[in-house]
């Protein structure tokens, strides 16, 4: 009796490095965005049409600065990683530079996100 085919958590421990991490984050962030946008659309509908309290509460959460930190991280990462994938997919001859591409992506992501967050925090402090 052979063992059942079961990868499960062992897959997470596989040392795939940067590109595998990027893929996992892309998936998770994509699903998160679907959830976020979907709920937002529906709650907007309820707020607009019925003035629902739950919907209003949800929108308050959405507008909090901490939630925005997360959303911006997710959206920015998904967009940048998506751009990397699109470029490599449409020009397969560039795939030999895939390792550099992953580095470049983080090189763009980290300052952009860092700057955004800094400005948001500064604004919050000024406003508060």
């Amino acid at each position, binding site marked *: *009796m*052979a*063992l*059942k*085919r079961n*990868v499960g958590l*062992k*897959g997470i*421990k*596989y*040392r*795939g*490095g940067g*590109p*595998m991490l990027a*893929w996992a984050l892309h998936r998770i962030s994509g699903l998160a965005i679907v959830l976020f946008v979907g709920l937002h659309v529906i709650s907007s509908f309820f707020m607009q049409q019925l003035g629902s309290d739950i919907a209003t509460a949800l929108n308050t959460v959405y507008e909090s600065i901490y939630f925005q930190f997360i959303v911006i991280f997710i959206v920015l990462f998904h967009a940048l990683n998506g751009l990397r*994938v699109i470029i*490599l*997919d*449409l020009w*397969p*001859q560039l*795939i*030999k530079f*895939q390792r550099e591409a992953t580095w470049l992506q983080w090189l763009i992501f980290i300052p952009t996100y860092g700057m955004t967050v800094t400005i948001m925090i500064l604004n919050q402090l000024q406003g508060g």
Partner: protein
Amino acid sequence: MEVTLKIFRYNPESGKKPHYEKYTVEAEPTDRVLDLLEYIKGNFDGTLSFRRSCAHGICGSDAMRINGQNRLACKLLVKDLHGAQITVEPILGLRVIKDLIVDMEPFFENYRSVLPYLINDEPAPKKERLQSPEERERFDDTTKCILCACCTTSCPSFWVNEKYVGPAAIVTAHRFIFDSRDRGAAERLKILSGQFGVYRCHTIFNCTTACPREIEVTQAIGEVKKAIGTGSLE
């Protein structure tokens, strides 16, 4: 130097659950991991089972997960692992039969599904079919494949669904699709554009990193995707 190997053990007849066992051996920096496994089998525990044949990275028998990455045990030297402990586990996504031996049949089934042979019904000339060095170079990279399964079993898409043909099968298909002598490209591209074809590839690059033959696997898959889209075999 002293090295400890932490090896995945499973024997279906022992009634024991899968577990890890540790063996400490004296090793030279230039020893292959395979040499250490042979030493352990020969001196400590004869029941330790793994496949091996040529011992220099050409036959593709001894693909295993070493320190969390798919490698050939015969192509990895102790000095390249930088550490006193080496973890050895079977490759993922195929059923474990015993210790480091997995059931390769699903892998070869996927390989066979992409028509892995030259298709050309035109009458052959008396001598060789002509092919320029450039045409030959076009698919050179993918002829290196030894079917060790390092790539396919490093692919998260294959982990979650063994019906995905996997990188190795696509590499084989690529080798024929871009061979100027072949006439079966349309048939193969049709198979690969299906549900379990190239679009289950999400450019995760684990295959490229894992390949012991240094084939640009993801690039080959990308070229197949492009051929499906453009209908061009440039």
